[in-house]
């Protein structure tokens, strides 16, 4: 994925005007999940730590609501 290079894109991950990553934003969350459904570690994603944590939270919430799989 191209997210590794453009660091400016990280601001667009959040809901506009906030620093909150929405668990409903499935196209975004899918980028940060491996083909087996595991959360990609930060040494692959290069996402700032704060956002990586919020991403993880969002992915876990989405999993709970059966929007994303735990295991593929």
């Amino acid at each position, binding site marked *: 994925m191209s997210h590794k290079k453009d660091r400016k894109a990280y601001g667009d991950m959040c809901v506009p005007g906030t620093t909150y990553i*929405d668990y*409903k934003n499935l196209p975004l969350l899918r980028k940060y999940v491996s083909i087996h459904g595991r959360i990609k570690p930060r040494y692959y994603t290069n996402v700032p730590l704060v956002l990586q944590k919020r991403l993880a939270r969002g992915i876990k919430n989405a999993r709970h609501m059966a929007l994303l799989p735990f295991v593929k």
Partner: protein
Amino acid sequence: LLDSHRLYQGAFLLPDVAIERADVHLDTFIHRKVTQLTMPKAKTATEPAKVEVPEEDLRKYELMVLIDPDNSSVEYQKHLDEVKKLIESHAGKIWHEEDWGKRELAYTIKKKDYGYYAIFNFNAPGEAIQEIGAQLRITSYVLRHLLVKVPDNYEPQQYELDEVEEEAKPEPKARPVRKAAPKKAAPAAKKAEPKKEEKAEKEADSSEKKAKLDKKLDELLSGDDDDLNL
């Protein structure tokens, strides 16, 4: 004893009713006083939590409910109304609703592969959230629920859900091949025809233009000479 009563009363600014009863035995008096003081407090603690809550104490929350698909759509609407009532009964004010309808689950829950998704955005006092969550956990038709605190300036967003994405993913591989052949052939033929006509027109235009340009140049040149002379 009486003196001590009055000192006691003076210190705590007791109401007149209490002063009249000052001749009652000390223990009973104190007991009554305590009940008088504690009872109204308990009332004030319970009543305003349901009726009046200052807006400063309200926070933005989001509730996503996953409702059992086995029920008909009429029952589904009933269930949604019940969830709404539950929120409103706990002093919640709903300001946005979303209905995703029936969706495939990422994994089976209670042997079910589909479910109805609904989202409620509401303002509520913090104490109400635990109670709402506890109630939802008990209700049988709610397969899953998610109660999240949302930032104050949060506005509901519309996202492309994965169903659309999954359908689109495999197609692009096949599409370019199919589309490329007819598209290129058809427009090329179309383009070829107008191009010839355009060329003819252009030639005609160009000859006219050339004549015009020559005239203009002459005029300009003569004009320039005049300007220079001036």
